[in-house]
């Protein structure tokens, strides 16, 4: 906006400059006219003086021709006299045109004309008288001719004086005007030049600014073009990446579908395991009891022992099948989170696993968690039954504790049993892995595997700290914000 006003000001200045030059020219023209007029006036004044003097000389020459004729009577003296008259008329006409009607010399000129006419008439009279044999000299002696000549001389002097004064005045005015013109032209030119230079400076600066702006704009346009090219190449890269991602996504979807199918298979397997495999097993167990029933007294101690062993193996196989089903089921169902008082949950678990009377369970301070209930309950139940199973013979002491870590809780279940050697610490979390002979401690090797599966799934970890003969502490972490993986 400021730039626009500036530009307008500059343009106005340039117009002002042009106008000034025009006015200067006009003024110079007018002043030159005045100067011309003054010069012409001056020239006319000179002519008036010269012609007046010539007139006077002509009249005097005519007079002297008259005198010569009158004295000698010879016609040849009259030649200047005859020549004088037309010349006098010419000179008078010339003077008439050279003196303005409003000039102060005008009345003097009229006076001169009258005097000259009178003089010429007087001369004519004397010459004619003398020619006709009269006494021309007597007329001369009257002094009339002398008086007229004096009068002409006087009037010519007056005209010369008047005209000279006018000429001097005119010339003075002329000088003044000339000085003024010189100054006007000089100053005007300088001003106009300065103004033009200034305006030129402004305009050239504006033009160079514009040029620079244009160059800048060009540069920016090129920059923008380069950026656009870069963006477009980036866009192409992004498009390529998107394409790749879509491809990967499609492959992932295919993998997911395959995974879903295999999960369904697994589910089906778990169902078969928990139902169909169990039925014949129960049949075997039942038949062994019916045999024993039906044989009645015929059952020998050896047969009885074998039948019991048979039922024991059936029970173990049943436990394994249940374990597989439990492991497969572990964490499969999506359960809504709820606020859980872990202390109460642990006490409920203790009730459910029903430890024998000689085992004591002490529970430390427990937090309240927001988590799905079932997996947490299953973990505690499995760890508790594990601790009961492997506790000290004839009176285990189980300790349940909780400790807070920055973004998770750590829960631990300790027993005072025989402990676990370090080389087995990893192994015990594997499926079907047991350490004690199965006939001594009934175990399927599934409980800890389920615990590991569940803690993995909910973003925690399980580990054991134990040394041979010093009991074992199983601990697992549970994130404060639990989301299944």
């Amino acid at each position, binding site marked *: 906006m400021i730039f626009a006003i500036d530009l307008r000001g500059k343009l106005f200045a340039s117009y002002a400059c042009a106008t000034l030059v025009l006015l200067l020219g006009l003024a110079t023209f007018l002043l030159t006219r005045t100067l011309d007029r003054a010069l012409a006036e001056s020239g006319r004044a000179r002519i008036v003086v010269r012609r007046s003097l010539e007139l006077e000389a002509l009249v005097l020459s005519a007079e002297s021709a008259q005198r010569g004729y009158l004295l000698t009577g010879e016609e040849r003296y009259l030649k200047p006299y005859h020549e004088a008259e037309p010349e006098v008329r010419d000179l008078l006409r010339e003077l008439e045109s050279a003196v303005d009607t409003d000039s102060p010399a005008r009345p003097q000129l009229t006076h001169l004309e009258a005097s000259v006419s009178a003089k010429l008439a007087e001369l004519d009279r004397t010459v004619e008288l003398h020619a006709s044999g009269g006494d021309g000299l007597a007329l001369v002696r009257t002094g009339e001719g002398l008086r007229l000549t004096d009068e002409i001389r006087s009037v010519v002097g007056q005209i010369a004086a008047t005209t000279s004064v006018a000429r001097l005045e005119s010339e003075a005015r002329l000088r003044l005007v000339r000085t003024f013109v010189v100054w006007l032209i000089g100053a005007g030119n300088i001003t106009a030049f300065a103004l033009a230079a200034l305006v030129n400076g402004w305009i050239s600066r504006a033009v160079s600014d514009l040029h620079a702006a244009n160059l800048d704009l060009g540069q920016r346009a090129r920059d923008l073009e380069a950026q656009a090219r870069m963006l477009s190449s980036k866009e192409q890269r992004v498009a390529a990446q998107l394409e790749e991602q879509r491809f990967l996504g499609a492959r992932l979807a295919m993998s997911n579908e395959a995974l879903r199918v295999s999960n369904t298979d697994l589910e089906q397997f778990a*169902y078969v395991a928990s*139902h169909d495999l169990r039925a014949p097993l*129960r*049949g075997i*167990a*039942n038949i062994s009891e019916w045999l024993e029933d039906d044989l009645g007294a015929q059952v020998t101690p050896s047969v009885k022992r074998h039948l019991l062993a048979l039922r024991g193996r059936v*029970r173990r196989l049943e436990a394994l099948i*249940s374990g597989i089903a439990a492991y497969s089921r572990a964490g499969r169902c999506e359960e809504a989170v709820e606020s859980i008082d872990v202390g109460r949950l642990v006490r409920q678990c203790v009730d459910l696993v029903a430890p024998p009377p000689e085992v004591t369970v002490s529970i430390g301070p427990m937090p309240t968690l927001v988590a799905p209930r079932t997996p947490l309950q299953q973990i505690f139940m499995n760890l508790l039954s594990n601790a009961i199973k492997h506790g000290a013979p004839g009176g285990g002491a189980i300790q349940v504790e909780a400790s807070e870590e920055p973004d998770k809780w750590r829960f631990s279940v300790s027993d005072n049993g025989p402990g676990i050697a370090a080389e087995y610490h990893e192994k015990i979390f594997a499926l079907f892995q047991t350490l004690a002979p199965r006939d001594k401690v009934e175990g399927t090797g599934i409980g800890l595997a389920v615990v590991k599966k569940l803690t993995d799934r909910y973003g925690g970890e399980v580990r054991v700290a134990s040394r041979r003969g010093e009991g074992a502490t199983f601990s697992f972490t549970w994130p404060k914000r639990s989301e299944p993986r």
Partner: protein
Amino acid sequence: MNTALQKRVNILLVEDDELDVENVERAFRKNNTPNPLWVALDGEEALRILRGPDYPKERRLVLLDLNLPRLSGIELLQEIRSDPALRPLSVVVLTTSNEDRDRTEAYNLNVAGYMLKPLTFQSFVELMSTLNRYWMLAELA
């Protein structure tokens, strides 16, 4: 136990495993249960018996296995609950399936109980004894 309050219950056992049928029969014998026992080897046969003339129309109890050929236990239950004549029937599920899904579906179809078949015969005998005693005291539709 006041035997005067006890009334016979007409029990229909729906079970495809002959061993389990014998299990129930043996248990009944061992308990000296007076209740008559009808046996259907699958769901369709069960429906035939339930709608047939031989099976009494009062004091009926169905012991139902879920894993059956042709018409499964759950499908049979759906059939029973959609038939106005059979809808009030008391059904107790006797199965090996400990699946949450089966249990939920069965209870949604108004079963009177859900029992897991015990592993040992001795436990089976005790279960049958308890079951019979309870239902003989119950007022049935």
